[in-house]
């Protein structure tokens, strides 16, 4: 009998339950789809680093479960409130609390099971889409293959079970604590109000804490290389969190006071009606709105960092190794004098590898070029000395030179434009990380003397620097004739292959060449240093693609869940307002406000509901981007990439948010007219 009643109730309030169903189905689908791809063998086998993807997703899932649990608890509470009168009436008629609890439980388990079943289908579809995206990142052909693994299903079911046990226990407690009066008159409960003074103090305190948090955040990324950066970093996160809650709680009242103080604003149009309603809303659900603002901030940060990481990792490959293979022909640290240059063993290894490359993947074009030093005497290295003096932290050993013709050939292999130099000029190309110090050097006399002639710096740039050109952070390009009397420091071979280098070729090459070990003696003690003698683009690419997938997907996963939670809760809140406010709109209508004006007021109210929790997060996102850029600056592709990343994340955020907004507005108008 009871289950029959329960089923009938569900049927009747199907429209109200629709939001609830959509919410849990979508959340479960997301959880399930990410688990599916995390455990997918096709994806973990893409690269050895992809194993970590599973652990990243498992870790992120912990946060997701917590947030989704909160969301479902919230929606359930909302449904409970909606039906409080019904439950109150049952109790009045003598049905025991236990029975009512059972009824509510039955309904929720029934709906939850439907959601779980649905989410297995939707989640599978999602996972196919996600797999396709990852395969695309790895530039692998993707065939839709449905392989059902038991592990992700079990893991997901465990998550759902956890969420449900938590939520149902909470609702049981809620029902236990209720009495008939509360149930019957739940809607009549008045809002709790902070006193005016507390509000303004909260507002001032929260704003200053927010400012301080942002400053600390910036400071943390100023000293990003030092281990102590964690202290200001976590402190700033804490402060920002507090300030988000504080501001959300107090800003409604602040706006209201402003509006009330200015008669011109107060008595104009629907300002009074809207701000009063709004501040009442913030008064009753300030903490929830604060949590929504916090989640919005996290969403924006996740999206932003994810976009920056993606760009950085993609770009890093090009900065590090734009050629298919770069290998050392000979290696020395201090020029021609080093004994290892005649290392017969290494010469043999080089020959073998070269032959192997030619045989396996073919050589389309290659360039063997020398890197020169003027002398082994460090005092002769003008730039290195100056750099060491302005930097202080790093010691630069020697200035490295390259022939203009070699440099131009290297550029040509990358389809980049060549440069020209006059007889008494050189060109300085350096790694972006050193920009600050080179900027300082610009003012100084950078003339270099070679063979009794003075060369001045024609131009210096950090654009398109390739770190695998040589073993240092900068390179001096000089007209060919000047290197005649120099010592050869390195001989390097840059190769573009005919065929693509697969993972197996990478493995074999690595085994063939191994690492070159050189022994050098510092202060009388011998050190063995292992040198990377070969860099393979395919290998770096695979590493970076794994990193992109792991970082970007985990962060995007979080962002998607967060924004879904924010959108859903705002939507539920606003739609329940529509029913509550119906009475208010009726009064306005009776007093002679036109239908169109009321619609305008509704639009304003819904807009305010949706904009309010994201204004401060947007502000934080924009400001922190500049701080984060200190971290990404060196590895991002373009000067202003961070602004694109920011723009992209805000756009994506607003797009998803906009869909929720639109759906809510349409629903609100429909609810009102019913």
């Amino acid at each position, binding site marked *: 009998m009871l289950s029959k009643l329960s089923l009938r109730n569900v049927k009747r309030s199907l429209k109200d339950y629709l939001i609830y169903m959509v919410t849990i189905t979508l959340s479960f689908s997301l959880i399930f789809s990410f688990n599916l791809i995390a455990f997918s063998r096709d994806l973990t086998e893409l690269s050895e680093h992809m194993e970590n993807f599973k652990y990243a997703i498992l870790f992120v899932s912990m946060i997701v479960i917590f947030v989704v649990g909160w969301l479902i608890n919230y929606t359930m509470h909302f449904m409970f409130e909606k039906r409080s009168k019904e439950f109150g009436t049952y109790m009045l008629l003598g049905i025991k609390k236990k029975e009512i609890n059972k009824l509510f439980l039955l309904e929720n388990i029934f709906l939850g099971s439907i959601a779980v079943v649905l989410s297995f289908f939707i989640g599978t579809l999602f996972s196919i889409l996600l797999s396709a995206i990852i395969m695309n990142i790895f530039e692998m052909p993707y065939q839709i293959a449905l392989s059902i693994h038991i592990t992700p299903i079990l893991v997901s079911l465990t998550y759902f079970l956890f969420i449900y046990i938590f939520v149902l226990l909470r609702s049981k407690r809620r029902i236990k604590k209720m009495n008939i009066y509360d149930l019957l008159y739940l809607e009549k409960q008045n809002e709790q109000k902070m006193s005016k003074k507390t509000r303004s103090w909260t507002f001032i305190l929260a704003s200053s804490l927010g400012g301080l948090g942002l400053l600390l955040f910036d400071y943390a990324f100023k000293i990003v290389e030092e281990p102590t950066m964690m202290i200001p970093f976590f402190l700033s996160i804490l402060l920002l969190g507090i300030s988000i809650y504080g501001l959300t709680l107090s800003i409604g009242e602040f706006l209201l006071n402003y509006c009330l103080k200015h*008669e011109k604003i107060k008595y*104009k149009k629907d300002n*009074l009606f809207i701000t*009063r309603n709004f501040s009442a809303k913030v008064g009753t659900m300030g903490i929830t709105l604060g949590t929504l603002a916090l989640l919005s901030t996290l969403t924006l940060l996740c999206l932003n960092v994810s976009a920056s990481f993606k760009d950085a990792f993609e770009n890093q490959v090009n900065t590090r190794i734009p050629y298919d293979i770069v290998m050392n022909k000979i290696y020395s640290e201090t020029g021609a004098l080093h004994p290892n240059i005649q290392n017969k063993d290494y010469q043999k290894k080089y020959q073998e590898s070269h032959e192997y490359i030619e045989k396996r993947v073919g050589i389309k074009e290659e360039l063997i070029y020398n890197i020169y030093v003027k002398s082994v005497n460090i005092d002769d290295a003008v730039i290195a000395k100056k750099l060491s003096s302005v930097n202080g932290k790093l010691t630069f050993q020697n200035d490295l030179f390259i022939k203009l013709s070699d440099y131009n050939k290297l550029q040509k292999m990358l389809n980049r434009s060549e440069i020209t130099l006059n007889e008494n000029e050189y060109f300085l190309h350096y790694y972006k990380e050193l920009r600050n110090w080179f900027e300082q050097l610009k003012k100084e006399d950078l003339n270099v003397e070679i063979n009794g002639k003075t060369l001045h710096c024609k131009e210096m740039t950090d654009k398109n620097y390739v770190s695998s050109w040589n073993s240092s952070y900068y390179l001096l390009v000089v007209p060919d004739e000047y290197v005649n009397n120099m010592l050869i420091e390195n001989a390097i071979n840059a190769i573009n292959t005919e065929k693509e280098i697969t993972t197996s070729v990478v493995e074999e090459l690595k085994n063939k060449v191994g690492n070159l070990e050189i022994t050098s003696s510092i202060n009388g003690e011998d050190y063995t240093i292992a040198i990377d003698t070969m860099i393979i683009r395919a290998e770096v690419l695979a590493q970076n693609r794994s990193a992109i997938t792991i970082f970007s997907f985990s962060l995007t996963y979080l962002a998607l869940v967060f924004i879904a939670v924010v959108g859903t809760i705002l939507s539920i809140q606003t739609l329940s307002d529509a029913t509550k406010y119906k009475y*208010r709109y009726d009064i306005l209508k*009776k007093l002679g406000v*036109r239908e169109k004006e009321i619609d305008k007021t509704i639009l304003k109210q819904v807009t305010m509901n949706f904009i309010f929790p994201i204004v401060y997060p947007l502000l934080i996102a924009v400001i922190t981007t500049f701080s984060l850029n200190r971290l990404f600056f060196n590895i991002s592709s373009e000067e202003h990439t961070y602004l694109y990343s920011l723009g992209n994340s805000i756009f994506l955020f607003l797009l998803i948010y906009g869909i929720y907004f639109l759906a809510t507005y349409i629903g609100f108008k429909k609810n009102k007219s019913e």
Partner: protein
Amino acid sequence: MEILKIEDLKKYYGKKSSIITKAINGISLEVQNQEFVAIMGASGSGKTTLLNCLSTIDTVTSGHIYIDGQDITELENDELSDFRREKLGFIFQDFNLLDTLTIEENIALSLIINKTDPKFVNNAVKDIAGRLDIANILKKFPYEVSGGQKQRCACARALINHPKLILADEPTGALDSRSARLLLETMWEMNENLNATILMVTHDAFSASFCKRVLFLKDGKIFNEIQKGDSPRKEFFEEILDVLTLMGGDLNDVK
């Protein structure tokens, strides 16, 4: 001068094929400027329907309603909104105050809707609140004041625009007898001193006795009509009770 003129008003409910309920079945009446008229009748006599038609929130089946010379049965939706805003004032049984606004703001709402220059709003509200004896509760919210005070606030809101006609629907329905009396005295003053024309719907003889004229409705028609004239209120009250007895209405409807 007549403010309200109703010509053979009919309001039928129900579809053509099924049984038709004749809520109002041919009512004609006139209300002069500065009159205070009560419309009485038992439940189902058609008084609420009549008021809804006058309030322009319900349509008529046939007949005409002229308020301030304008036939409201021929107005469109938006015109009706404008008309309500400019010409009518309302006092409802359940106050219909916005719970998020203070008393002061609730009164000002009428002016705001009429797009009054914000400069004048504050003074107008203070003025009317002083007259209705609610100046001391202006900063409070509806849930912080008594029912009588709430209804006086509703009166103030209805009055502040200087409407041509104030329509009151059982204004004392939710009040205790003391508050009811105070409110009725207030309404009487509104009519007497502030020259407001009021049409009140009630089933309470005591309330009706404060009016200058009482119309009795039965089965959608005007059954009787009595004038107070110069007789004292108590006598008029007795007179009303007599008519009610004559009508044979349920005595439960007579307080």
